[in-house]
């Protein structure tokens, strides 16, 4: 029988929630890495017991952790617990935390700062980890200040794939309120050389040659808060989602607007339709219905909570425009939490499971494609990320 593992990153540690395939009774393990911000944790689709974690702190910087036993034990990939701390040649290990921009390949230039001046690129943290779909030792990392890194040795060492930062538009990239982070990385399962990246608040980008070159793909997006609403750069993309069976169709939750592309991001059009607010952060696609999309509307860019204090997941079964509120099991009064961009995911069981975490520390799960919801756990620290694995 299948089982399910939900990986939850919070402001003060990581938690692992486990259930059998019925998804009714959950065991909660954690906190792992107590006291640290866990921006993201994600398992390899090739080896599901291999989980990578971005552990970060304003005090102590960036740490990468890895588990090879489904989260029971952890180690820094370059320096497993109890292992020698130097290589046979005497070189210090522990390189797994080192994210250094590749200045030789792309000069370390500047990006736009809040006050309109140019600001030096500075590494701050890893926002998102995306394991390869085919190789358990290859992982991509989206970092702040925005850049793509890759490890080909299971997270021991990281190299910048500088084509993104060096695509020629970097000087126009400006940080959103949360920083200049590469927060979305999607690999096309039909062609792993094709990947998508999204940066707040620069825009979205596509590579067709495995990160060597990146093209800006923002045509059709319109953002009222930038001087030229149709500018190529400056759109605050919050999240992009794709169904693996239809990789040329993308759904986007933008700062305002829910949008869709049917040509691999070449052009976009708005599908906000009858949503009560088209502001929000996460967006995801049903595991078995490529035209069924989930968003969580948030009142506004300054009021980061659900409209009317009612926590509602909105589902469109038509790929956008027509949306229905999913409320059963969710608080419908006095609810003022937010749901962050990496804090929603789906599983591929039948029926499709949908999961999201809130800044109030709840993790909600639906076992029926969004029709009804239960809180798996209620009182965690603010949730930053949620990922799910289905295990056989």
């Amino acid at each position: 029988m299948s089982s399910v593992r939900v990986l939850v990153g919070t402001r003060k540690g990581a938690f692992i929630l486990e259930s059998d395939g019925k998804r009714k009774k959950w065991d909660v393990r954690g906190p792992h890495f107590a006291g640290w911000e866990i921006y993201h944790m994600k398992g390899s689709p090739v080896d599901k017991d291999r989980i990578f974690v971005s552990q970060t702190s304003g005090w102590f910087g960036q740490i990468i952790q890895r588990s090879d036993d489904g989260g029971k034990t952890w180690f820094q990939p370059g320096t497993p617990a109890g292992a020698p701390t130097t290589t046979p040649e005497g070189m210090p290990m522990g390189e797994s935390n080192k994210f250094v921009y590749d200045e030789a390949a792309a000069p370390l230039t500047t990006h736009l700062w809040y006050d309109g001046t140019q600001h030096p690129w500075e590494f701050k943290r890893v926002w998102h980890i995306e394991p390869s779909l085919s190789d358990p030792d290859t992982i991509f990392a989206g970092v702040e200040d925005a850049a793509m890194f890759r490890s080909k040795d299971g997270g021991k060492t990281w190299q910048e794939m500088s084509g993104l930062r060096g695509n020629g538009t970097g000087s126009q990239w400006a940080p959103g309120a949360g920083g200049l982070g590469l927060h979305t990385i999607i690999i096309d399962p039909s062609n792993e050389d094709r990947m998508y990246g999204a940066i707040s608040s620069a825009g979205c980008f596509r590579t067709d040659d495995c990160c060597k070159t990146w093209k800006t793909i923002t045509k059709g997006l319109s953002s009222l808060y930038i001087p030229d609403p149709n500018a190529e750069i400056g759109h605050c993309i919050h999240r992009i989602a794709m169904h693996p069976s239809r990789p040329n169709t993308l759904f986007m939750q933008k700062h305002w607007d829910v949008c869709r592309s049917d040509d691999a991001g070449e052009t976009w059009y708005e599908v906000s339709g009858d949503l009560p607010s088209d502001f929000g952060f996460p967006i995801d696609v049903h595991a078995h219905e490529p035209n069924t999309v989930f968003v969580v509307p948030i009142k506004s860019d300054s009021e980061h909570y659900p409209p009317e204090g009612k926590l509602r997941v909105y589902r469109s079964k038509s790929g956008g425009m027509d949306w229905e509120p999913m409320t059963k099991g969710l608080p419908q009064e006095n609810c003022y939490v937010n749901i962050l961009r990496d804090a929603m995911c789906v599983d591929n069981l039948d029926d499709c499971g949908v999961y999201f975490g809130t800044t109030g520390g709840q993790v909600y799960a639906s076992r029926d494609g969004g029709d009804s919801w239960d809180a798996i756990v209620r009182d965690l620290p603010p949730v930053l990320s949620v990922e799910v694995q289905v295990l056989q």
Partner: protein
Amino acid sequence: MAAIRVSLPTHLKTLSHVDGEIVVEVDGAVTQRTVIDAVESKYPMLCGTIRDHVTKKRRPFIRFYACEEDLSNEDLDAPLPEAVVSGQETYFVIGAMAGG
């Protein structure tokens, strides 16, 4: 060779799998730079957590204390007090009070 006692903040003890103070050996001049070099050499998983990987600049919310003095902004190449060199006093790496 001097044996230097170093106190790490809790989170860095966890990362380096140690309890209590650590002791690092420093050959030659005992300065803040050579002590941190020795800490990173013995516990490479701490590289980047106390100072930047490349610039070696102290992370903003890390402080260095010894002998009841804040040495955070002192010359990294200045000799540390004799009490630290002799092992009588501990060199403290501190996570600054900064909320959160």
